[in-house]
């Protein structure tokens, strides 16, 4: 555990990619194979199941630290992370231990056999044998909240460097359903892929955005300069659903979302068409709600996505379809190397043969003769319930991960409105103890009505300035939330807007964020609720 805790702080201590890879390699060369695979699992989000709930962990920590609940809460709001707060509050330990990461995880996994009292004894004696840094990572693993500021591609790069395997191969091998208890490091590193996991998806190919913000809106001419002849490109609407990979192998079906969540059960409507596909088919596409031949806004999908039980009512109100845009495996053969045009032909053939074309849909290719035409069409994306266009080069292979060059997303400019900040709350992680989470309001007659919360969009320098303002202009405190003097105006961008009965303003925004700080505007110049509702 000490090596793992040390790895975690070393990664924290550098912002440099090469340095991170160096630290990872050093670690991998040092620890036993069981720890290697366990680390890979943790770093790719495969956490052990939580065996003790956070409330109990917190209660026992307060007992051990001998502090009242309110003081624990105050501390938590300053630290911004439960595991870290506990690690700092516990009395310093006298003892040490030498258990490895995998031994600790094995202990955590066997906790369900213990009574609550036994769990408590185990936890307290565990804490008593660790230093602060060990406690911190241990708490994160224990409470199922382990996250690390290292992208998957870095850890793969480090493993590729020490094993000699290609990064694309490793990326593919660590996809899907594996468990560090049964999948070993040597299996991962075999020269020939020994996996028999028929559920395993391919790594998604992700596109970069052509324009990051509305400030940098690109003209048709600029696009033409950058991407060349429009006839070499395939344009498709960018759908606002959930990116998903649908698999049929040996008569079994699997649906993976982009976050590598196995979501087969969440989309029962898709099962019949998948079962009828030829054996050994993998499709890439969008799981999306669809009614009357028309995609529905994302918030319809949102109402069902978190549900454990999909009732008849939910299935009726939010029927699903799958808009397919690529085929990655055909008749059991990995066809990602084929050019898009050929993969598309195969996809169209599969679609023609399907008896479920109301659910298995093809992402239509938007037929245009010039970038200007596409530019004009893009402005109407919202009418199509789309977020803009996906541009894919016709001769492009299906690559691994986010790559520049062959695929681009060309999103519509966000909708925007000028709003007044009225509440602020401290952030978490890197933004702990800084006021970074704001609530914004617009005018309704002479009152400011809150309508959105936003966390991102300001530079570090601006955040410091706003934080400074909040600390000196607090009107009231409600727990961690501060009411601040209405004075700062921000331009808030969002992707969509819907009516909502749950919000005071009567609207709910999709993906609100701060576009810019309008230091030139006074609060009287902020927009009104009426203006906001015109977007509905």
């Amino acid at each position: 555990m000490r090596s793992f805790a040390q790895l975690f702080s070393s990664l924290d201590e550098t912002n440099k990619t090469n340095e991170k890879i160096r630290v990872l390699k050093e670690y991998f060369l040092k620890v036993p194979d069981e720890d290697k695979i366990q680390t890979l699992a943790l770093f790719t989000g495969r956490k052990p199941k939580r065996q003790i709930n956070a409330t109990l962990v917190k209660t026992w920590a307060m007992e051990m630290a001998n502090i009242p609940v309110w003081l624990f809460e105050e501390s938590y709001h300053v630290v911004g992370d439960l595991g870290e707060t506990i690690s700092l509050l516990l009395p310093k330990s006298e003892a040490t231990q030498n258990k490895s990461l995998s031994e600790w995880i094995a202990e955590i996994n066997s906790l369900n056999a213990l009574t609550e009292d036994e769990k408590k004894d185990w936890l307290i004696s565990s804490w008593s044998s660790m230093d602060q840094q060990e406690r911190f990572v241990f708490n994160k693993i224990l409470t199922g909240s382990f996250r690390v500021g290292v992208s998957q591609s870095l850890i793969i790069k480090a493993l590729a460097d020490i094993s000699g395997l290609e990064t694309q191969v490793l990326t593919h091998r660590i996809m899907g359903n594996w468990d560090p208890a049964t999948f070993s490091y040597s299996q991962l590193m075999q020269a020939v892929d020994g996996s028999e996991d028929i559920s395993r998806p391919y790594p998604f190919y992700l596109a970069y955005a052509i324009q990051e913000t509305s400030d940098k809106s690109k003209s048709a001419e600029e696009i033409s300069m950058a991407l060349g002849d429009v006839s070499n490109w395939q344009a498709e609407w960018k759908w606002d659903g959930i990116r998903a990979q649908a698999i049929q192998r040996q008569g079994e079906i699997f649906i993976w979302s982009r976050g590598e969540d196995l979501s087969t059960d969440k989309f029962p409507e898709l099962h019949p068409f998948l079962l009828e596909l030829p054996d050994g088919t993998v499709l890439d596409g969008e799981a999306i709600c669809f009614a009357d031949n028309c995609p529905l806004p994302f918030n319809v999908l949102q109402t069902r996505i978190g549900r454990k039980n999909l009732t008849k009512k939910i299935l009726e109100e939010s029927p699903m379809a799958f808009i397919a845009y690529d085929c990655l495996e055909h008749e059991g053969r990995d066809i990602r190397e084929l050019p898009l045009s050929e993969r598309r032909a195969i996809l169209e053939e599969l679609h023609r043969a399907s008896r479920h074309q109301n659910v298995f849909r093809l992402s239509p290719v938007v037929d245009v003769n010039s970038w200007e035409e596409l530019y004009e069409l893009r402005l109407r994306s919202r009418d199509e319930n789309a977020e803009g266009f996906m541009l894919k080069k016709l001769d492009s292979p299906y690559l691994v991960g986010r790559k520049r060059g062959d695929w681009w997303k060309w999103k519509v400019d966000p909708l925007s409105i000028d709003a007044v900040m009225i509440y602020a709350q401290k952030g978490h992680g890197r933004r702990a103890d800084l006021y970074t989470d704001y609530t914004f309001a617009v005018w309704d007659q002479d009152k400011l009505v809150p309508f959105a919360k936003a966390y991102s969009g300001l530079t570090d320098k601006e955040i410091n300035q706003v934080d400074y303002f909040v600390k000196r202009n607090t009107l009231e405190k409600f727990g961690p939330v501060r009411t601040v003097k209405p004075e700062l105006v921000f331009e808030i961008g969002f992707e969509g807007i819907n009516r909502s009965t749950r919000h005071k303003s009567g609207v709910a925004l999709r993906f609100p964020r701060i576009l810019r700080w309008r230091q030139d505007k006074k609060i009287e110049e902020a927009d009104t609720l009426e203006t906001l509702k015109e977007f509905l």
Partner: protein
Amino acid sequence: MPAKPLLEFNDCGIYCAAGDFYIDPWRPVKSAVITHAHSDHAKWGHDNYLAHSLSREVLLYRLGEISLETMDYGKTVVKNGVTISFFPAGHILGSAQVRVEYKGEVWVVSGDYKLEDDQVCQPFEPVKCHSFISECTFGLPVYSWRPQQEIFDSMNNWWRQNIEEGRTTVLVGYSLGKAQRILQGLDLSIGRVYTHGVIENTNEALRRNGVQLSETTRVTPDTNKDEMRRGLILCPPSSVGTPWMRKFYPYSFGYCSGWMALRGAKRRRAADRGFVLSDHADWNGLISAIQATGCETVYLTHGYTAPFSRYLSETGYDAHEAHTIYGGDEASELDQDPVKLVNEEGEVIGAEENIDSMEALAVDSATPLKQPLTDSEKSAALKKAKKAGGAL
């Protein structure tokens, strides 16, 4: 009507009506007793100053020609029947707790303090009193310091490692207090210590005051770059991210502060290394300092005043939050930055007393000051800058 308390908080500072003087006033007053020379405690513009002898040269350097009397620890001075004496606060060189006694009632103003003996300044000495006015910058139980030797060991190891890897070592710490403490803790057999002008000016002032400090070399445009690569460069927070600092590339930069105890704060500073080294008391330090005074009443001036006073109240003290300008409820060490316009070599090129902590970040000759200067200040600053050959 209850009797007026011996010390009270008003718009100008901590006031003693019986003796007609202020302690660490933030607005110009006739008579100011200063706990220590950090800029949020020692403001410009008072008619008369009383401070500890070891603060003398730094105060004169920072505030210019002021009317200053000094006094050693344990000595007393009487004003209108009120006895004032100084006791070591252990915060920085020349930092004093101010003990005020009148008709048998004793109050102590802590200024800033820490309990660990840093081997640089005289260690904190508890003083019995009825009422204690305390700081609580780190008044939450998540703050708990490791012994300084551990911190210095890792600092020295980091320095050695940087030399091995061919990187310059840049260490950031406050120019008064932290810098001298770091200097004392470094293993000078590893290499030379180079200083930013602001720090070297402070060192010189302390040396004029008779303080023995290890040898340091001021960074000037002529300093040999290759030699500096094996050395350690000490600079104040205001130099982070400036062209001055970028000149040392490739470097590894460490940040020394109590705030480094939290991962979020550490990541935000984007330092390569965060060293948890503070000149303030941690949670347990604050509590034991308060217990040692034997006081009944505590006033908390800055830091996490709300939770800390609640905690003290629950443990039986008559505790109050006081409103001062020493940082508000989220005191930041930034407030301790010298608020003078200094160019890279440490030449003072202007003075602006009301720069707040935000602007203090921008104090650098390369960055224009955002707080407007008056025309006369501007021309004075320009003249001095020209004389010094610096660019404004």
